[in-house]
């Protein structure tokens, strides 16, 4: 019989605190007058900070909880901190944007916190059922968030599209879990890992084992939007309200990568070469298609969406590099990617003005002369996304490529390098438009609200800090990468 000990509770403290704040936000929502809803946003931000403090407490008593279904190890705490950072940046960037779009409702903050809870559970669980619940919580919350501009047809379309394809994908994942259970009689990754370690492969029916792994891969590949499961990405990123897009492009993606790492490099690491080829192929497809399609975009939001697809490809290269080499670079990459992508989306969304009207590349013409600081900020994000030296994006890519070369993936590395050269073209297109063309930028709306300034400052400082002094953080990711699964 399982009884719940105090340690069990400490090990899910961050999730519990976040969930508590989410529930409070939800309950307070109807009691606040429409003009004061931003208070709930600040309250949510306080909740995120409190959860961050709780991770420190949790880190003092690491270990398994709730009958081996939660693992409060360095790996999961790393991801929880990453999710909290993303949630905090999104919150800071959302206050003004929600007011401007006239959708400042408390439900937004409650759903955002709950999505974060789900993501934290995804990263921290060693039990497939818990992972599925976390996936479902974060997915449901983000489906609704994508449609939060209820009067806007594009937002509605985004929500519906994301929901239909997403629930299909989660069904795939669930089917995979069911097959795993049918084969082995367990859904616990630790037990699975021990069973596989002994026998080396699934005993009864190896075909079905492959079916299970592929099904789970498809379910997660949808969330990280790898080719060919990416088709929803541009439309959803374009239609969803801007802070939601910033959150979507980073949060659920990183959570799904955490699960991919735990399942494929952790529990099923002994499944070996077959899994490797799946990652290899989808990495190549994702990098090529993401970068080439981004070349053709004229809408900045869509351009960033395809760039997000391409970046998922680079992370897959890291996973293909394998357990010993790839995990730490993947963690590094995901952090850097979170900083630069959230920053870029928030800034673009703010510049786009009310109703997000000005999102074409030409709308940014001459921004460098009208708003030098803002343009410099956007340029920094673009440089980092392109992987330019002195920005964090450079080291993120460098570590991934190095890991790939160490694992002998020369072909994959060549494709990765070539495609990132291609990517420079479309990132620089925006910079060129901002600085080297005369014109009056449409997208130069009102001054930046200070909450957004704080969020951007954190991202920019983070990018340059990690770009100039990457070693400390690399050590940290190395520590976090050790205890898998």
């Amino acid at each position, binding site marked *: 019989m399982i*009884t*719940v000990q105090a340690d069990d509770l400490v090990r899910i403290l961050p999730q519990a605190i976040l969930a508590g704040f989410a*529930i409070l936000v*939800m*309950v307070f*929502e*109807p*009691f606040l007058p429409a003009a004061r809803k931003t208070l709930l946003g600040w309250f949510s931000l306080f909740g995120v900070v409190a959860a961050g403090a709780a991770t420190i407490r949790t880190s003092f008593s690491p270990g398994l909880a709730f009958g081996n279904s939660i693992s409060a190890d360095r790996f999961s705490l790393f991801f929880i901190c990453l999710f909290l950072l993303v949630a905090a940046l999104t919150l800071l960037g959302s206050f003004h944007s929600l007011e401007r779009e006239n959708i400042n409702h408390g439900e937004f903050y409650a759903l955002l916190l709950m999505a974060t809870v789900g993501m934290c559970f995804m990263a921290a669980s060693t039990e497939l059922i818990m992972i599925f619940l976390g996936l479902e919580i974060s997915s449901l919350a983000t489906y609704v968030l994508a449609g939060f501009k209820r009067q806007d047809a594009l937002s509605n379309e985004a929500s519906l599209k994301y929901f239909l394809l997403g629930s299909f994908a989660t069904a795939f994942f669930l089917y995979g879990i069911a097959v795993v259970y049918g084969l082995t009689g367990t859904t616990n990754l630790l037990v699975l890992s021990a069973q596989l370690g002994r026998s080396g492969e699934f005993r009864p029916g190896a075909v079905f084992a492959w079916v299970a792994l592929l099904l789970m891969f498809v379910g997660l590949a949808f969330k990280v939007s790898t080719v060919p499961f990416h088709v929803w990405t541009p439309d959803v990123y374009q239609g969803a309200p801007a802070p939601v897009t910033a959150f979507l492009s980073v949060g659920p993606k990183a959570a799904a990568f955490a699960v991919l790492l735990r399942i494929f490099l952790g529990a099923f690491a002994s499944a070996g070469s077959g899994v490797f080829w799946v990652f290899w192929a989808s990495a190549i497809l994702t990098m090529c298609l993401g970068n080439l399609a981004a070349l053709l975009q004229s809408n900045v939001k869509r351009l960033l969406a395809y760039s997000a697809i391409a970046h998922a490809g680079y992370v897959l290269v890291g996973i293909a590099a394998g357990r010993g080499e790839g995990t730490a670079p993947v963690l590094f990459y995901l952090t850097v990617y979170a900083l630069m992508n959230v920053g870029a989306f928030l800034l673009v969304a703010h510049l786009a003005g009310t109703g997000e009207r000005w999102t074409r590349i030409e709308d940014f013409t001459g921004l460098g002369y009208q708003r030098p600081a803002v343009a410099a900020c956007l340029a920094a994000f673009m440089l980092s996304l392109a992987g330019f030296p002195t920005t964090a994006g450079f080291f993120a890519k460098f570590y991934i490529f190095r890991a790939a070369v160490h694992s002998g993936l020369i072909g994959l590395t060549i494709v990765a390098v070539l495609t990132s050269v291609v990517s420079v073209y479309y990132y620089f297109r925006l910079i060129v438009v901002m600085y080297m063309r005369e014109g009056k930028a449409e997208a130069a709306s009102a001054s930046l609200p200070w909450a957004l300034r704080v969020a951007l400052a954190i991202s920019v400082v983070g990018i340059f800090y990690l770009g100039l002094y990457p070693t400390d953080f690399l050590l940290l990711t190395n520590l976090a990468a050790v205890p898998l699964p």
Partner: protein
Amino acid sequence: MFGSYLPILVHFVVVVVVAGAIMGLSAWVGVKRPSREKLSPYECGITPVGDARGRFSISFYLVGMLFILFDVEIAFLFPWAVVYRSLGWFGFIEMFLYIVILLAGYLYIWKKGALDWTR
């Protein structure tokens, strides 16, 4: 194990037989003199207006969805009620927490006026 389901099976059979008998008998014995009035749909004695398949308000849908959600909640109470005694205080506390969390949801719905037909 299945013995306890025998009454339900018997019940099913009785339902089918009785319902079939009522409909069959009235079809067989009854006198049929159809007229236009008699064949028109019955709406509480009022002359039918328009088509029954009109478009319904989304409020029905909202209430329907909320019904499902709390129905799912109730579904968890069944197995809990069966093992409640052997779980002791542990079981009481876990279900208490669960209900309190969902009560917060109920409070939200209520104050929000989602169950209020006029809003």
